[in-house]
């Protein structure tokens, strides 16, 4: 399971991805990912919003995660 970071999320974490495969306890849901991140990196709590994409689709908090999922951390978008 890989976490991808973009924009300010990459600055907060200090890298563009984290491989969680070696972790003892993988997050089981999108909500778990958010809790993991905000606990480890309090700066995530300061953002206007924080969305998660699972396999490149926006995912609600209750979406269940699988081992091979690509999890992207989506801070407030600002294209255009």
């Amino acid at each position, binding site marked *: 399971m890989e976490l991808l970071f973009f*924009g300010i999320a990459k600055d907060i974490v200090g890298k563009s991805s984290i491989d969680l495969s070696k972790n003892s306890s993988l997050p089981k849901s999108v909500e778990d990912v958010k809790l993991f991140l905000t606990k480890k990196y309090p700066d995530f709590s300061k953002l206007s919003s924080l969305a998660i994409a699972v396999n490149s689709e926006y995912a609600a908090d209750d979406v269940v995660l699988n081992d091979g999922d690509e999890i992207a951390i*989506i801070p407030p*978008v*600002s294209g*255009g």
Partner: protein
Amino acid sequence: MKKTIIEIVKTLNVDVVYKELSDPKSGGICVFVGTVRDFTNNEEVISLEFETYKVMAIKEMQKIANQAIDKWNLNKVVIRHAIGGKGVEEPVVVIGASSGHRDACFTACRYMIDTLKETVPIWKKEVFKNKTVWVSAHP
């Protein structure tokens, strides 16, 4: 003929968009180009830096194009966004719609740029003389 052109590119060529939107069933073509402004809140902007989660951005841009085509019966749509560094006056996004009558292409073009700014995973960093700011990141 493909009805939509959805792209993320290093360099935007805005001059090609009319040929891409041209269609015998269209009486109107509306194009919006977003460009880099020299000042934000009275601070001089040196450049903008765009990055994207490309695979997802393309998917989301395609959704927007499909929604607009369904809703306003468009003949052709172009959504093309630049990434990387862009200086003042450079184009960063081109959105175009081609339709039988002008109402549809104006409304659709506006809808597409508004929705792109809300949903497509692209991030913009403003580079000022003494600092950089991720746009919209904080309340």
